[in-house]
């Protein structure tokens, strides 16, 4: 890859050859967010489980001998990429110093929706916010502000709610102490989108 992106370059047409099995597996492993069973990976790349399993073990060994910054580990029946143990000092420093202490506006707004609508599914939040919220929910969960509280009976969707840590950060004892929304709704007769959207 060159530094400057070639803007006029055309995107891959359907005729683009499919990647090698190893390349495809590596791509899928980059986006999985929990250990994935061999059989699932085999289904995704449409190859026999044994072949995929053998290749995964080979890839894991390769990463070790090449001295990659990541390791491919088979944990509790599934495969996932982890940072290499020897790199921990750098990763720790990045996590401690490089991560924002303050929530982004998008994260704060999503947190507000969860707080007032809990228990609530991701798709419902996405509907209210008008954007995909997967990444933001992940951040809120990893920051300990939001947690999975239940599973919707019919759809099987995970429902989210706020944590005790959230209440602590907001300086509240219980959820009942959240200020009622009605106090903050604009007068229905003066309801104007500008009133709603201008917070500052």
């Amino acid at each position: 890859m060159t530094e400057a992106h070639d803007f006029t370059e055309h995107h891959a047409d359907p005729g683009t050859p499919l990647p090698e099995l190893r390349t495809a597996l590596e791509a899928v492993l980059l986006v999985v967010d929990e250990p994935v069973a061999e059989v699932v990976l085999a289904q995704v790349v449409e190859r026999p489980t044994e072949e995929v399993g053998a290749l995964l073990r080979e890839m894991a060994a390769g990463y070790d001998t090449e001295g990659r910054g990541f390791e491919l580990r088979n944990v509790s029946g599934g495969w996932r990429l982890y940072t290499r143990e020897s790199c921990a000092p750098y990763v720790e420093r990045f996590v401690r110093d490089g991560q924002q202490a303050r929530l982004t506006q998008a994260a704060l707004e999503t947190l507000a929706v969860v707080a007032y609508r809990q228990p609530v599914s991701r798709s419902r939040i996405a509907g209210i916010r008008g954007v995909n919220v997967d990444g933001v929910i992940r951040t809120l969960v990893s920051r300990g502000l939001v947690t999975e509280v239940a599973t919707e009976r019919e759809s099987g969707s995970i429902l989210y709610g706020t944590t005790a840590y959230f209440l602590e950060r907001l300086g509240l004892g219980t959820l009942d102490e959240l200020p009622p929304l009605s106090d903050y709704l604009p007068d229905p007769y003066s309801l104007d989108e500008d009133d709603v959207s201008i917070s500052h």
Partner: protein
Amino acid sequence: MASRDPSAGDEIRLPDVEDHSAESFHVHLAQFEGPFDLLLSLIAKRQLDVTLIALAQVTDEFIAHIRSRGEDWDLDQASAFLVVAATLLDLKVARLLPSGEVDDEDDLALLEARDLLFARLLQYRAYKELAAIMADRFAREGRRFPRAVPMEPTFLALLPEVLLGVGAEQFAAVAVRAMAPRPEPVVSIDHLHAPKVSVREQAVLLAARLRAAGQGTFRGLTADAGAVLVVVARFLALLELYREGAVTFEQMSPLGELHVRWVPSDVANAELERWAHETGEIDDYDAPAPQEQP
């Protein structure tokens, strides 16, 4: 891209390129046949003279194109066409104005207006092309997925304490804002609230005046019009009357006074009689009715 064939005079040879999806709007003219977008780019590149194009025909074809799609017409396409057609019309008007010698400041202003219109057309065209590049870019980038997975448990505890940055009261205000219904994008119709003006009504009215007076000037016939739209309707009405053979025009100098003379004609009278009896008919020239987004 089309290139001009020197042997073809004003004919434009159109190589069969670009994606002609069935959806796109094609025009069929004496000088040009092909997608409207290509017509536009030829005009923008000065490979085709806008004064040679019968814009009325282009418009008729566009209306037919929209009608053929039934309920399924494309608002984006229709509004884009209106913008471009209006600019082309302005451009054509400016191009048809005399340009021999620049005598006074008015002429100079007209020439500048012409250049500005042309530049505006080019600019519109440029952003359209850039938008296409962006769409392509969005599509391609959509095939790459960023690494975005939860932090490994070993590092979770290292994350700095979260700063919400707001108190409970402000948090409620954030919630209200986050959950406020988002306004659905609608096409503004504020500029379309002009009253409907029927060209044929105006034709009947003008015919009555001209029949009585024998003749008149365009200035005089539109003195009581009130709105620009009525002036336009009366101008179109005069063209209709001219087509029916009911009037003749005389103009001594470019941009000079336009004299209209009544020509008694049984055929025209019969037609006018018919128009007078049509009530509530919507003519193609009427102001567009407010259009809700589908």
